[in-house]
C-alpha cells in the first residue's frame, strides 16, 4: 500500500511540530524516520494510523485520505501496549477477534504466530510474567497476525537493552521479508534505521523538517554496518550527536545543525 504525505503540517496550539512534510512511500518500501526526541516523528506515524489528524495538508493511503484507524494500517507501540489481563495468546488473538473472527479460530492462529516469533511454550503467560523482549515479540505477532498492508513501528525496541534489541531487529527483518508490508519505522537508533530501512529520513528539531534523505535501496544487510560508516557518521552529525564529526561536516555541508 502506497502512502503519501502532502504538505502535512501539525500544530498543538501555538506549537508547530511538523512543518509541511512531503513524501511518497512506495508499496513495500521500508522507511525509517530518525530525529531528536519530541520532533513529531511519532505524530506522523499516528497520522498514518488514523489516530491523529493533520492541521494542514493530507496523509493518503492508496490515494485515499486517512480518516480513521483500520486494521490494514497497524501500529506497534514502544511498550506496555499488551493487555495485562490477557495471556500472550489472547493478546495476539484479539487482533483477529476484533475483525469478527471466532475466538477458537483466532486463538489457534495466534499460537502459530507466537511460534513464528519463538514464543511457543509461553502462550498462557501474562505479559508481566515475561521479559520486555518477549513482550515486544508478542507485540510483533499481534501486529503481523492481521496481515497489515502498512506496518507502523513507533520506537518498537526503544525500551530494550542493546543485545535484545539486535535480536528483535533480526526477528522483525525476517517477518518483513516474508510478509512484505509497507513499513514506516520511527527510531532514535541510527543503526536500527540503517539495518532495517531502504530509505532514511533525518528530521530536524521542532518544527520537524527533513534535513536529509538517504536512499539505501532494498539490499541484503547484516548487523555489521561497517559498509555504512560514512552514512552513519553523516546522520549522527546531522542529529548533532557526534560533535567532532559535526565540525568536519559543517565545512562540507551547510546543513541545519542545531
Amino acid at each position: 500500500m502506497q502512502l503519501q504525505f502532502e504538505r502535512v503540517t501539525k500544530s498543538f496550539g501555538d506549537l508547530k511540530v511538523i512543518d509541511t512534510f512531503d513524501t511518497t512511500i512506495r508499496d513495500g518500501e521500508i522507511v525509517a524516520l530518525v530525529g531528536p526526541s519530541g520532533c513529531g516523528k511519532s505524530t506522523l506515524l499516528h497520522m498514518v494510523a488514523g489516530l491523529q489528524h493533520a492541521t494542514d495538508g493530507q496523509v493518503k493511503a492508496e490515494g485515499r485520505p486517512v480518516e480513521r484507524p483500520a486494521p490494514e494500517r497497524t501500529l506497534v507501540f514502544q511498550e506496555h501496549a499488551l493487555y495485562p489481563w490477557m495471556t500472550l495468546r489472547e493478546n495476539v488473538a484479539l487482533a483477529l477477534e476484533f475483525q469478527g473472527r471466532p475466538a477458537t479460530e483466532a486463538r489457534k492462529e495466534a499460537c502459530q504466530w507466537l511460534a513464528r516469533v519463538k514464543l511457543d511454550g509461553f502462550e498462557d503467560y501474562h505479559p508481566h510474567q515475561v521479559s520486555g523482549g518477549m513482550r515486544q515479540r508478542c507485540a510483533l505477532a499481534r501486529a503481523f497476525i492481521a496481515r497489515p498492508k502498512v506496518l507502523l513501528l513507533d520506537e518498537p525496541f526503544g525500551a530494550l537493552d542493546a543485545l535484545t534489541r539486535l535480536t528483535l531487529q533480526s526477528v522483525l527483518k525476517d517477518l518483513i521479508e516474508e510478509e512484505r508490508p509497507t513499513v514506516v519505522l520511527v527510531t532514535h537508533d541510527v543503526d536500527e534505521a540503517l539495518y532495517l530501512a531502504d530509505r532514511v529520513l533525518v528530521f530536524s528539531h521542532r518544527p520537524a523538517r527533513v534535513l536529509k534523505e538517504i536512499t539505501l535501496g532494498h539490499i541484503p544487510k547484516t548487523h555489521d554496518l561497517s559498509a555504512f560508516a560514512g552514512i552513519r557518521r553523516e546522520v549522527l552529525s546531522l542529529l548533532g550527536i557526534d560533535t567532532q564529526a559535526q565540525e568536519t561536516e559543517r565545512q562540507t555541508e551547510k546543513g541545519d545543525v542545531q
Partner: protein
Amino acid sequence: MSNTVTGVASKRAYVLAIVLILFFWQVAAWFLPSFLMPDVHVALIRLWRELGSAEFYRGLGNSMGRLGAGYGAALLAGIVLGLVGGTLNSVRSTLKAAIIILQSIPSIAWVPLFLILMGFGNMPIIVVVAVGAFFPTALSVMNATESVERVHIDAARVMGASRMQMLKRVYFPAVTPELITGAQLAFGNAWRALISAEMIVGFSAGLGKSLAYSGEIADMTGVMTNILVIAVLAAVIDQVILERIKYRLLRYQYL
C-alpha cells in the same frame, strides 16, 4: 509466596480482633445488669436456638433477597453509567459532580420519599439499598475509565475494535480492579442501608425488623443476637465472597 503469608497474618489479625470485641462485650456484661447487657454465652445460646427456627430463615431470606436485588441493580447501573460517563468527555465532570453531591445524602434519608412514592412493601427498601450502593460503584468505575491507559485504547483502535468491543474487551477489564474496590465500598453502604431501612419500614420479616422488634420489647439478648448476626453476615459476605470474586477476576495480578 508473600500472598499466602499476608493471608495467614490477616486471618490471625481477624481472629484476634473478634476475640477482643467479644472480650469488651463480656466486660460490659459483667458491669451492667443482665437485662441491659447479656453475657456473650447467653447471646450465643440464643443464636444457636434461632438458627433452628424457620422464622429466622424467613427473615434472613427476605433480607438477602432485598440486598441481592438492590445491590445487584446498583452494580449493573453503576458499571454502565460509569463506563459510558467515563468515556464521554463532555458530560463526565458534570456527572461526577452530581454523583458527589447525591452521594453525600445518607441513603436512609430517601426512605420517606420512596415509602410514599412506592408504597409500603419491599420496593422502597430495595431502592434505598440500590441508592446506597450505586454512587460508589459509578464513581469508581468512572474514575477508572478516565484513567485507562491511552496506549491500551489506541492499540484497540488500531486493531479495528468497534465501540462495543472496546467497552467489553478493553475498558471493562481495565477498570475491574477499581470496580471491585468500589463494589466492596458499595456493599458496606448497601448493608447499612438495608438494615436501617428494614428497621424503619418494618415490612415483613427481615434482619433489621427483627432487631428493631427486639429493641421495642426490651429484649437485650435479642438485640445483641441480631447485632451479632448482622456483623457476622457482613464480614462473611465481604471477606469471603467478595474477596474470592476479587481474587478470581484479578488472578492475573496475583500470578
